[in-house]
């Protein structure tokens, strides 16, 4: 009995005006999810910074083997960079289409993004296979161990991103633009753009600085 009287009286229900307009309660799930994924991405970037630090420390340790200037094919790296940059742009187009619930343009933009990502991955695998085939694999020197760890870790992220991309395309077909699917698309777009940011550091520090010195 006493419980119902408390609920009916607004003064008792909200004595400290916690539900006033400037305190609208917990943030909507879209913001909570996006922010949580942002924290994950930043910790991923911190992990990459450890790989960058070890690469920078070990880049001189070639053990008499070849250095960056002899190994890297800058033209190949330029094509990889162009592919990833364009895929970041088409990923942005996909998120605009997703917000407007335009399934056709979403699927087109995601397909282009996935193809560009797959092209990037293909070029990287070819580069790795070429290096290993010439005997300059990760076991050749500390420099090459650090190189394969750093660049390979980024490549693994791209591969995981492509799997996620295909999942999102399938989920939009199967379930449409539901609120939870839209949150996943938001997180995927964050992930894909973050990969491009890490690649900027990779091509600048590893390839361009590595072949300049």
């Amino acid at each position, binding site marked *: 009995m006493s419980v119902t009287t408390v609920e009916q009286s607004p003064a008792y229900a909200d004595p400290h005006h916690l539900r006033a307009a400037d305190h609208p*309660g917990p943030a*909507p799930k*879209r913001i909570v999810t996006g922010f949580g994924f942002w924290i994950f991405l930043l910790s991923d970037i911190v992990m990459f910074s450890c790989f960058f*630090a070890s690469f920078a420390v070990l880049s001189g340790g070639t053990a008499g083997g070849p250095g960056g200037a002899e190994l890297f094919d*800058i033209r190949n790296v330029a094509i990889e*960079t162009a592919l990833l940059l364009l895929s970041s742009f088409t990923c*942005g187009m996909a998120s605009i289409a997703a917000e407007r619930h335009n399934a056709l343009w979403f699927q087109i933009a995601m397909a282009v993004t996935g193809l560009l990502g797959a092209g990037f991955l293909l070029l990287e695998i070819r580069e790795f296979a070429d290096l290993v085939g010439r005997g300059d694999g990760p076991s050749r020197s500390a420099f090459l161990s650090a190189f394969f760890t750093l660049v390979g870790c980024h490549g693994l992220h791209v591969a995981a991103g492509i799997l996620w991309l295909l999942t999102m395309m399938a989920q939009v077909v199967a379930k449409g633009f539901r609120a939870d699917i839209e949150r996943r698309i938001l997180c995927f777009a964050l992930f894909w753009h*973050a990969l491009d940011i890490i690649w900027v550091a990779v091509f*600048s520090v590893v390839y361009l600085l590595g072949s300049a010195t």
Partner: protein
Amino acid sequence: MSDHAQDFGGFDDRGDLAPGEQQHGDLRSRILFYLAGLGLAVLLTATSFFIAGTHLVWQPSIPVALIVLAIAQMGVHLVFFLHITTGPDNTNNVLALAFGLLIVFLVVGGSLWIMANLNHNMMPMDQLMRMQQ
């Protein structure tokens, strides 16, 4: 009562934006925003690749220039693709980013500093070999 709660939970009532979320605008201006980002990123990337391969600039300046260009391009990606701004709706995102950057600089800078110091203080390899005999 439940309708009331729904209103507060709605997206437009909040003063926050999720990371990666673009402020509302018409389709044309939003695509143009991405295109502007793409243009700037292409410009910075092309400059990086040009500087690394050319003999036109003073050679010792190349590493610094490459790092500056890379940081600038990361900024372009953050603003134009991830939509991180300094607006009040983005405070949480920027603070998290600032903390992440602090850790990144501590890890990279600290490692380089300590390892360079160790390298500097290490006995040259031939002397070390002689001592072990």
